[in-house]
């Protein structure tokens, strides 16, 4: 049982949870994730760690409330308890030797990209942080993002805030204007990561993406999180979740993520009807 000590709504569908998890907080590194179950009957879901405080023994996740399980999590009040949390799982994002990096986040993925940007900045790297949202109302943690980077670029689909356009437009502009990145780190929807990779491939810039496939145990047992990377089968929970984006078969990953779409819809309906 892990007590939620802070719960904050960041936008209509995104909520921040900080909960007690001293052992996980002690080990967590940017890029790693936890598996949690809100209640004793819930599904196990992977959530990337957005922040951690080793002294306070707390871990923060920022969650888009999209399905039944995230809705169950969102139903737990501040001061309430999450049934199970295991972690930190997966390999940390590699940051060694990076001097100039573009960190690209999309939607709730910005929250996952944030600790990576923060770590790189703390290590003395120059970080351009490009964040994309659909519109102004969905933008969150702007101050934190700014503090974690040298240059924050906010993009919105409709131009209601920051610049109008996609994150790939901003990235392209920065590259064209002469930014020489050692690496691009992209975290967000699969389709966004796919197009970031297509762009950086043209410029020959190494690109790392954080994959978030369907998982059950998250410890290297079930094999549900398998992906094709460089033509080989990889398991996101132990081999990842970060992979060389130019080698990831995004189309397969997108297809596999839709495996339970219908079930999810029914489950969400069931949940709404019983409330």
């Amino acid at each position, binding site marked *: 049982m892990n007590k939620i000590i802070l719960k904050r709504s960041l936008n209509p569908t995104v909520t921040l949870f900080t909960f007690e998890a001293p052992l996980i907080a002690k080990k967590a590194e940017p890029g790693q994730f936890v598996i949690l179950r809100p209640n004793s009957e819930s599904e*196990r879901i992977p959530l990337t760690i957005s922040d951690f405080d080793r002294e306070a023994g707390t871990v923060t996740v920022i969650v888009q409330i999209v399905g039944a399980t995230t809705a169950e999590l969102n139903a737990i009040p501040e001061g309430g308890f999450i049934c199970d949390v295991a972690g930190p799982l997966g390999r940390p994002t590699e940051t060694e030797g990076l001097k100039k990096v573009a960190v690209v986040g999309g939607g709730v993925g910005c929250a996952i990209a944030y600790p990576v940007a923060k770590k790189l900045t703390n290590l003395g790297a120059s970080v351009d942080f490009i964040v994309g949202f659909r519109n102004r109302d969905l933008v969150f943690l702007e101050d934190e993002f700014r503090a974690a980077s040298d240059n924050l670029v906010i993009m919105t689909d409709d131009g209601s805030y920051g610049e109008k356009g996609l994150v790939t437009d901003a990235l392209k502009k920065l590259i064209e204007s002469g930014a020489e990145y050692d690496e691009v780190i992209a975290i967000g929807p699969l389709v966004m990561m796919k197009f970031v990779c297509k762009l950086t491939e043209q410029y020959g810039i190494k690109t790392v993406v954080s994959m978030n496939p369907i998982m059950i145990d998250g410890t290297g047992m*079930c094999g549900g999180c398998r992906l094709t990377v460089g033509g080989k089968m990889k398991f996101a929970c132990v081999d990842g979740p970060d992979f060389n984006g130019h080698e990831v078969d995004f189309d397969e990953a997108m297809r596999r993520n839709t495996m339970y779409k219908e079930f999810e819809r029914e489950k969400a309906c069931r949940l709404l009807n019983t409330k």
Partner: protein
Amino acid sequence: MPNMSLKKNPMPSQEPEVRNKNFKEVALGYTEEQALDEAARCLNCKNRPCTQGCPVAIRIPDFIKETAAGNFEKAYEIISLSSSLPAVCGRVCPQESQCEKYCVRGIKGEPVGIGRLERFVADRHNSLPTENRTAPAKNGHKVAVIGSGPSGLTCAVDLAKKGYDVTVFEALHTAGGVLVYGIPEFRLPKDIVSKEVDGLKALGVKIETNVVIGKTLTVDELITQGFEAIFIGSGAGLPNFMNIPGEGLNGVYSANEFLTRINLMKAYRDNSETPVMRAEKVAVVGGGNVAMDAARCAKRLGAKEVYIIYRRSEEELPARAEEVEHAKEEGIVFRLLTNPTEILSEDGKTVSGIRCVEMTLGEPDASGRRRPIEKHGSEFEIPLDCVIMAIGTSPNPLIKSTTNGLETTPKGGIVVDENGETSRENVYAGGDAVTGAATVILAMGAGKKAAAAINKKIQGLL
């Protein structure tokens, strides 16, 4: 006078056409009369070949003698001296290749139903009100056990009984390991497993769930925390795939994933929060117990056609004979001497079938089994909507990659000596983490051996 019937008392079971639609236990267990009758078949022979066939050396003729005399609790005590999970082993051990294989009665007729008697004795004991078990006096030594599957549970019980302060670390949210996530309810009811785990707690063993050793804590940190010995029973690891085209399609599962969804996450229940595909036509690739479990689960989820695809012949099937028999009775179709070459898809997204090739058996290979060889030009296709790969696992990399100086085989299994000790002093290992996918009882045997060695080492006897 011994009962000289050549046949075992048959096991009362749910009818095949009934049970293949529910997840309740298939075998119902002997009645007292049947148990008395079956126990009377044991000749109580002098050289006890059955005991030699048991990986944990249960004093089989002794417990059967007490059973025959109606002293069921005494029989339970005798089994408990050697086995910490009798209700489990009576159900899942491959008796036909162990104790019962060597039974003298098996020379002419069927061997004594040792497994069935073990189950009867254990179930009867478990149905009695639990006496207030008190934890034995602590001896002041701390031992950590990694994993709460059969090897870890056995190791923990044996050490706790000797007074060790034992903490079991489990990565999942429920203790039991493969007994909980792998073996289905209809073969091993989860109540039985939780009873065994409760018994462990009554002995004073602490169980820490949601702790992933190698991630949340490392083996070296456990040593720093004052654990004098560590037993690694982390179990099987990542599922193997065939590396044939189409394994990334929607509708392809590893058996581990399919079974975990059903058993650990209860996806077979209508109100389950965890989804699982309910397919019409399913093929399970592989011939072991896990393959049988997956096939029988698929059937129970409503599949009309379920195939077992196995590249060797019936004789080489590694599954327990009873599981094969049950699977057949339940309508599972065996496509033996058959090997998949490609998983097919009409829409490029979901499984629509499997292409296979027929096999013949050649000369014996390194495993001693006859090597399957492809029959040229024998390709054929089976229309399907789900494929489950049950072709074994490779050891989990998490502990190996985070423990300095822990020697592993080229395949990734942890190397141990004859006492179960690894290349790291005071660090022991056993079960699937060492051997690769094997049986519950072999894992228990390894846990038992390591517990004995840990005790001797700490007491300065080794």
